[in-house]
């Protein structure tokens, strides 16, 4: 294998980064509408969660159907710590990170002892259990009535109350997340993960500890989700358990799959496409003459999703990779799947 090509395709391109960074920074000054800025805040939040998921799915080869639970853990930690007990918001974020780490360990260790996609099933169950706790522990979470009055995010006396300031906060966190994930991918752990994704037994035979490598990926994705959840709670100021149901986990998965999990940028790309597709369908579907309600938007969304994935099964960023580099991860995956199905 051509090592040089391999590393290059996963390295950041400095020129491109500068342009992108510039675009992200001037964007809110070009767009006068808070509505557009807030769609990009949501994109940024989802982007953080999905970047974590990309590390887990694209590099450790594990599917999660329960990341909304980590998102919820972050949101409720922030809400309770800063909204109920009046600690500074940063304390809430840290609490969320801590709980997410512990929970990820608890769920990860037994799951990773098993083969294949048992993490998907375990996280699905875990998601429902967390939801039940948020729903039933009413004295702490407010139950299904929701938790409102969460203060705005504040750090060193600066309070993020406007959409524009929050936009910068979220995208800065996202940029840090991408940088961190990129470093991880190029570290020893990252290469170990990649080799696990290729073939577990081969990886094990060259002395890679499957358990710790996979756990690292899971913990990182859990922390990313938790931080995004914390920020979300501060941004909207009202949360309720239904936001963190299984459906939300599935939405995260949708974003990662349409973006493509084999590229680090897949999570962000998926978040952009998802949020804007849903928003644009609101305007476009009535133009086609369907004005009754959201059911047509749902149908169109479903059809587009299916069509997209039939033509780009590796997601949008995934197909790029295929063209760009000789190293193509999906060839191996196909073989794996056949093996699993038989």
């Amino acid at each position, binding site marked *: 294998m051509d090592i040089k090509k391999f590393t290059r395709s996963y390295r950041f391109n400095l020129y491109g980064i500068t342009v992108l960074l510039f675009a992200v920074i001037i964007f809110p000054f070009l767009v006068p509408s808070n509505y557009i800025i807030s769609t990009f805040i949501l994109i940024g939040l989802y982007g953080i969660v999905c970047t974590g998921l990309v590390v887990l799915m694209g590099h450790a080869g594990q599917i999660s159907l329960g990341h909304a639970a980590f998102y919820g853990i972050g949101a409720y930690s922030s809400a309770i710590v800063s909204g109920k007990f009046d600690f500074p918001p940063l304390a809430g974020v840290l609490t969320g990170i801590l709980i997410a780490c512990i929970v990820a360990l608890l769920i990860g260790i037994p799951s990773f002892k098993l083969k294949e996609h048992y993490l998907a099933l375990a996280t699905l169950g875990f998601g429902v259990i967390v939801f039940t706790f948020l729903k039933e522990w009413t004295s702490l979470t407010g139950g299904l009535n929701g938790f409102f009055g969460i203060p705005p995010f504040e750090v060193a006396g600066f309070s993020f109350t406007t959409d524009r300031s929050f936009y910068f906060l979220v995208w800065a966190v996202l940029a840090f997340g991408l940088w961190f994930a990129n470093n991880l991918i190029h570290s020893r752990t990252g290469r170990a993960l990649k080799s696990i994704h290729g073939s577990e037994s081969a990886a094990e035979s060259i002395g890679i500890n499957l358990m710790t490598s996979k756990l690292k990926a899971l913990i990182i994705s859990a922390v990313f989700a938790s931080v995004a959840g914390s920020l979300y709670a501060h941004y909207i100021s009202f949360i309720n358990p239904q936001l963190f149901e299984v459906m939300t986990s599935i939405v995260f998965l949708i974003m990662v799959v349409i973006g493509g999990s084999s590229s680090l940028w897949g999570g962000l790309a998926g978040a952009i496409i998802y949020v804007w597709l849903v928003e644009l369908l609101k305007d476009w579907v009535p133009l086609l003459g369907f004005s009754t309600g959201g059911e047509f938007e*749902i*149908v169109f969304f479903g059809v587009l999703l*299916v069509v997209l994935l*039939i033509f780009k099964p590796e997601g949008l960023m995934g197909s790029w990779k295929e063209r760009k580099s000789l190293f193509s991860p999906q060839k191996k995956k196909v073989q794996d*799947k056949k093996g*699993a199905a038989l």
Partner: protein
Amino acid sequence: MESLSQLMQLLFSGLTIGSIYALIAIGFVITYNITGVLNFAQGEFAMLGALLTISLSSAGLPLYLAVILAILIVMLVGGFFERAAIYPARKSSVATLIIITIGISFVFRGAAIFIWGTQPHSLTPFSGNSPIRIFEAVLLPQSLWAVGISLAALAGMYYFFNKTYTGKAVTACVMNRFAAQLMGIKPEKMSFLSISLSAGLGALAGIIIAPISGASYQMGLMLGMKAFIAAVIGGLTNAPAAVLGAFLIGIIEAFSEGYLSSGYKDAVSFAVLLLVLFFMPNGLFSKKSGKRV
């Protein structure tokens, strides 16, 4: 005496709902083993079956005809779904396939709102509504129908897979796709067959539950999830184990509702799922030596 009657009651409730999960769970297992797809649209077939039956029977068709026709239509829909969405993507990764089935379930649900509206619909029970009393516990005729039909369906499946030529071909495909191909069996055909078969089973489940709980566009999601747990508890690879898993989940739900609180019902059944996953990863009822298919 009172506690005995409560016990009986919980058992009846658990078996009734378990038999409905069972029908959908069998569909899960068949689809998974033949196509490798975890079909998250499985529950939507139940919704379609129930609502179609209601429409057909209110259009004046006798109930049995409406049921048969509805099942056939759903099987066609299922087959179409396999050709249009699963077959072209059959070589994609597991995550992609899961999302495709989720996309399809969006389409079904949206279409259902358009056709049947947002209000729930009702179907009259298959035979009478006067409860049968055993030890002070109440058993409805519809529950007998539910359990009876799912057992009959299981027997039918057993016969189909072990005694008929087509069924044996499907089984062969599960065992060894390559060898089956050498024997002149087309796996593509089997994939079509298996999904429309599970669609039919799902539709049947929806039709049975409609007189008990009513039917609406959003009933599929919950049924699908529960049936999915049942299938996993059973090991995802063999249908009879999935049926046992389904009855187990039904009974666990009834008991946690009866003795604990219904708020924790879902959490309890998912906790059982986790326990099974962690301690008996091949499913509760699998034989130790069993080859994973």
